[in-house]
């Protein structure tokens, strides 16, 4: 027990040291932000001089442009002022005493089943209870706070969420929770509170907030929705399929595995084996939208076969025409047997827009 308290005291000391670093970094930023503020004010003064010139010489178009520029410059002054005020506020903030941070860590022992501090890596971590969302068991998570990265909290979160008994979504091991990908948590509504808790050294509040996010399912914006967590069931065979590898029949609106789907050779759309049709000539799969019917013989063909005049009824007409020509030969009419069929011969078509 004494050793545990000593470890927590070391962790508290390290947290406080990092909070000091954070405060120092804000002090360092104030000078630069004041310079930016002076530059912004300088631009306002420049546009003020231009404004006077334009008014005096009644340059109306230039006056309009100058007023717009002045507006932008004033917005920039406001932006730089707010940045500077924020840094001053953070620099004035009191860093909590070691005893207060120690109290946070002791409270963590009551709120979480396991609290640990890796002195070498400077990582403070807790383990949550098993997370279950809408019947999907996601297991325990370890929330790791990297104390060495706390000073860069304005740019990135210094923590990871690691699944200890992963039950990732089908087909993507990096998504171990609807709101965790690659061990990074999308903090959503908790962003501001998480940042403020870390800035003020309220580490127990920080871990509690992260746990609250892990225990909540936001169906509006997960990486993968829970309804598809274990893949999508194929409508035909019932097998579970990775959403990224599934197909969709646009005609009966069903989800399909690769084995139960077919691709139309005309439009390359996908369809199920019930909705897909087959060209009677080339035997290729054709979707209901691309299959065409020969007006003469009602054969169902793909556009390619129809365009190439491959319909059987076209072949029969060609032969009949050739027979007719040969009969005329026999009746004394000279016929050139190598002559091409008549140019006014046309194939009946059901589709429009053909040449």
């Amino acid at each position: 027990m004494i050793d545990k308290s000593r470890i927590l005291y070391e962790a508290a000391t390290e947290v406080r040291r990092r909070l000091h670093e954070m405060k120092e970094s804000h002090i360092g930023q104030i000078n630069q932000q004041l310079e930016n503020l002076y530059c912004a004010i300088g631009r306002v003064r420049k546009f003020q001089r231009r404004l006077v010139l334009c008014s005096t010489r009644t340059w109306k178009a230039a006056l309009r442009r100058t007023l717009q520029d002045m507006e932008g410059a004033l917005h920039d002054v406001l932006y730089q002022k707010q940045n500077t005020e924020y840094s001053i506020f953070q620099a004035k903030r009191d860093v909590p005493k070691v005893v207060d941070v120690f109290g946070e860590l002791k409270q963590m022992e009551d709120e979480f089943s396991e609290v640990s501090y890796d002195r070498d890596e400077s990582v403070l971590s807790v383990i949550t209870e098993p997370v279950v969302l809408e019947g999907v068991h996601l297991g325990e998570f370890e929330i790791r706070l990297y104390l060495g990265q706390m000073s860069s909290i304005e740019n990135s979160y210094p923590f990871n969420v690691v699944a200890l008994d992963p039950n990732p979504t089908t087909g993507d091991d990096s998504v171990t929770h609807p709101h965790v990908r690659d061990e990074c948590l999308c903090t959503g509504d908790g962003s501001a509170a998480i940042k403020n808790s870390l800035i003020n050294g309220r580490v127990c509040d920080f871990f509690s907030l992260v746990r609250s996010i892990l225990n909540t399912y936001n169906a509006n914006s997960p990486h993968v929705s829970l309804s598809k967590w274990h893949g999508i069931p194929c409508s035909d065979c019932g097998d579970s399929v990775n959403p990224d590898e599934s197909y969709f029949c646009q005609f009966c609106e069903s989800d399909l595995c690769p084995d139960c789907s077919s691709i139309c050779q005309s439009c390359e759309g996908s369809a199920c084996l019930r909705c897909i049709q087959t060209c009677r000539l080339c035997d290729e799969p054709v979707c209901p939208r691309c299959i065409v019917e020969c007006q003469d013989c009602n054969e169902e063909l793909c556009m390619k076969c129809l365009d190439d005049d491959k319909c059987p009824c076209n072949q029969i007409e060609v032969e009949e025409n050739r027979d007719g020509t040969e009969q005329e030969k026999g009746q004394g009419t000279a016929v050139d047997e190598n002559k091409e069929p008549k140019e006014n011969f046309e194939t009946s078509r059901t589709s429009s827009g053909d040449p």
Partner: protein
Amino acid sequence: MKVLWINNDGGGFADYVEVEEGTTVEGFFSEKLPGRESEDFLIRVNRQPVAKDYSLQEGDRVTMTPTKIEGA
């Protein structure tokens, strides 16, 4: 009397607020977070769980953390 109130719902700000003598934790919660259910929050006074009818004291540290927060 003044208590330190840390509201982790929303911005997560901490501030000293005036409360009347005899105000219970339940009453304080209803006043500060009207329309919300206390069961949806982790409520701690001086880092400890307390009963609803606990009367706040001068200088108490009251923390309220939602147990459900939507991620993105």
